[in-house]
């Protein structure tokens, strides 16, 4: 076997061994014709193409001083410890390495926050930076002042009480239910995070006797810091929504009835689906070995998964439940979209680098078109943001290759299938958003 034909990690991951061998320039005796190989350099070029930039946003203005508050807090925490720790400050070398690494991560996360594309992304990054900085500050307090877990219990109790107090005043009010949904959904998620973190690190049910030490105490403190940050952000988003309202109405009933209506519709439409069925049994076309088989499988196995909707609903998280409905409808419609396409003859051939280029291009175009044409950009953009992220991920999975490397097509079939997934999801997103929005406003 020539060096060029050494299976790469990617190849091994993608496929069983025999297929990898079969892709290696047609070894004799393996039967059948060998699939084509693609030019690695051209693949690098294709996967280096532009991806739409879609920042995650929330439809309220996050105050600059709120963002700055996170930055300042991170800086204060980092300034509390003598960094980097030396062996007199933290004699345990393994802990010292871990804590110095956490300090580095806190600083680099702080830098990352300056380069994000929206204030909403900035606060998410800064919550993380605060957690890491608190880790470091706590390590020093543990060593220098004898801080222990029990000294943090009051903080935890206060956070839990503050979460409860916030939940008491959290009510679904607003003007436009769609805009309100897009604010309440992250508010609910953030409060859930704060609530979980107030309990500290949940004990791993598979572990017992976990001795307390400097590291476990820093983990607890970091959880509290992230929880506090999340609650602060939730409060800010909620207060900004309120401040913007010139007139408002109670939306709880609106959310509930929209949820009921959409849920019934979803259940009706998916009642015939069984995710355990092989996709070949539900698609009337020959898709074996076509990259389109991949997204059809992903989507089909997940359609009719309505568990997260009911979980959120049971937890009183109406906005999260509605967003979950949006997600499930998107899955369903994307599956139907792809099924219709293959049943009407679209074959998604993957035989040349130009096939890869065309399939990737269709994913990128679908995202751009979705963003341009959606009547409900707020509801659509976060799905499209995630799809853009997925294209970036797939790009980095496919390449890079050494010059003149030949890539058996089987190695990238699954990756290319994920571009098709992106295209399908992006295509159907505007319609799903419109359905959800109309139901909310009706």
């Amino acid at each position, binding site marked *: 076997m020539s060096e060029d034909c050494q299976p790469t990690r990617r190849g091994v991951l993608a496929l069983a061994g025999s297929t990898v061998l079969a892709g290696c320039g047609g070894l004799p005796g393996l039967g059948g014709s060998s699939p084509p190989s693609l030019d690695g350099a051209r693949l690098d070029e294709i996967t280096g193409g532009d991806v739409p930039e879609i920042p995650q946003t929330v439809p309220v203005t996050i105050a600059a001083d709120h963002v700055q508050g996170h930055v300042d807090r991170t800086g204060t925490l980092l300034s509390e410890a003598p960094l980097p720790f030396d062996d007199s400050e933290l004699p345990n070398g393994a802990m010292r390495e871990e804590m110095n690494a956490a300090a580095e991560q806190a600083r680099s996360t702080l830098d990352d926050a300056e380069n994000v594309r929206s204030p909403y992304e900035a606060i998410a990054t800064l919550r993380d930076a605060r957690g890491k900085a608190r880790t470091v500050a706590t390590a020093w307090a543990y*060593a220098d002042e004898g801080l222990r877990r029990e000294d943090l219990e009051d903080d935890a109790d206060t956070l839990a009480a503050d979460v409860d107090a916030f939940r008491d005043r959290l009510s679904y009010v607003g003007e436009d239910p769609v805009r309100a949904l897009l604010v309440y959904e992250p508010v609910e998620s953030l409060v859930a995070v704060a609530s979980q973190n107030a309990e500290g690190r949940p004990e791993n049910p598979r572990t017992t006797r976990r001795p307390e030490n400097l590291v476990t105490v820093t983990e607890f403190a970091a959880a509290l810091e992230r929880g506090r940050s999340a609650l602060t952000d939730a409060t800010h988003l909620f207060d900004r929504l309120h401040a913007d309202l010139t007139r408002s109405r109670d939306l709880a009933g609106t959310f509930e009835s929209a949820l009921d209506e959409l849920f019934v519709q979803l259940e009706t439409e998916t009642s015939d689906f069984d995710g355990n069925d092989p996709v070949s049994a539900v698609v009337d076309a020959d898709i074996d070995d076509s990259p389109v088989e991949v997204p059809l499988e992903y989507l089909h196995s997940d359609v009719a998964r309505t568990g997260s909707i009911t979980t959120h609903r049971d937890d009183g998280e109406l906005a999260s439940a509605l967003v979950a409905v949006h997600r499930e409808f998107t899955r369903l419609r994307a599956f139907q979209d792809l099924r219709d396409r293959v049943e009407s003859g679209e074959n998604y051939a993957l035989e040349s680098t130009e096939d890869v280029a065309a399939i990737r291009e269709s994913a990128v175009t679908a995202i751009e078109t979705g963003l341009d044409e959606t009547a409900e950009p707020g509801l659509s953009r976060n799905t499209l943001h995630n799809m853009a992220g997925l294209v970036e991920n797939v790009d980095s999975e496919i390449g890079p290759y050494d010059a003149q490397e030949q890539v058996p097509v089987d190695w990238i079939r699954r990756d290319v299938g994920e571009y098709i997934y992106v295209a399908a999801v992006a295509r159907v997103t505007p319609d799903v958003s419109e359905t959800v929005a109309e139901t909310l406003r009706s």
Partner: protein
Amino acid sequence: MAPTRRQALSSGIALLAALAGCNDRSDTPESDGVDGDGGDGGDRFARPENVAMDPESVTIREPGTRERIVEVADADGEVNRTERERRRAVREGFVTSAEAASWLRIDDVDGAETARQFLDETDFEESFVFLDRGSVRQCYERLVCYITWNQSELRRTYAEVYRDYDVPCTAGERDSVATFIRLQGTVDPQRIESDGTHTRYGGCPVPRWRLEDRLEPENETTTVTDEATATDGTSAAVRHSGRHR
């Protein structure tokens, strides 16, 4: 925090939650490193024949070396096959008689006296000692979680946890350790063999035969609640909790 591809695919149509819920709990020591099923076959949840939770033990260690700190003395002069077999069993760790204990040569390290005393105090009519010799990362200590055995095999389950923050140690170095574990009952050293060790980073695993109870939230009463505090890894204090079988 970029979602992994599979996450992005399965939940990835997710909206704001992806950022809002970004609750990074990346933690190093708790990862289940060496933990695994260990391939002991049979019913995963079947309770082994003999179980000692948190048995009495003494651990001694020597920094910066992997050389064994406890050796089994060779017999003087010519020895017959039976005699060789008996010493082989002790080298495997099964110390089942006072005579076998007398073959142990413990290096002059911290805690050597305590270890010798631990052996001397053992009533070999009713109990035996398993001696585990190996090495541990210098900034960590190895806790004995539980031992399971039957007449043919004995298995150790350990936790590897950080030593105290103020213990000077070098990441990447290892120390030689020897752990003496006292177990109730008797075993035939000619029949029993070591069935290896199972190490969990960060804390002791819940035994499999208790896991079902523990993962069943309705059944909290059976939850294991041992909560030992960190021990100073340099000491050789006898640890015990009286929970045998």
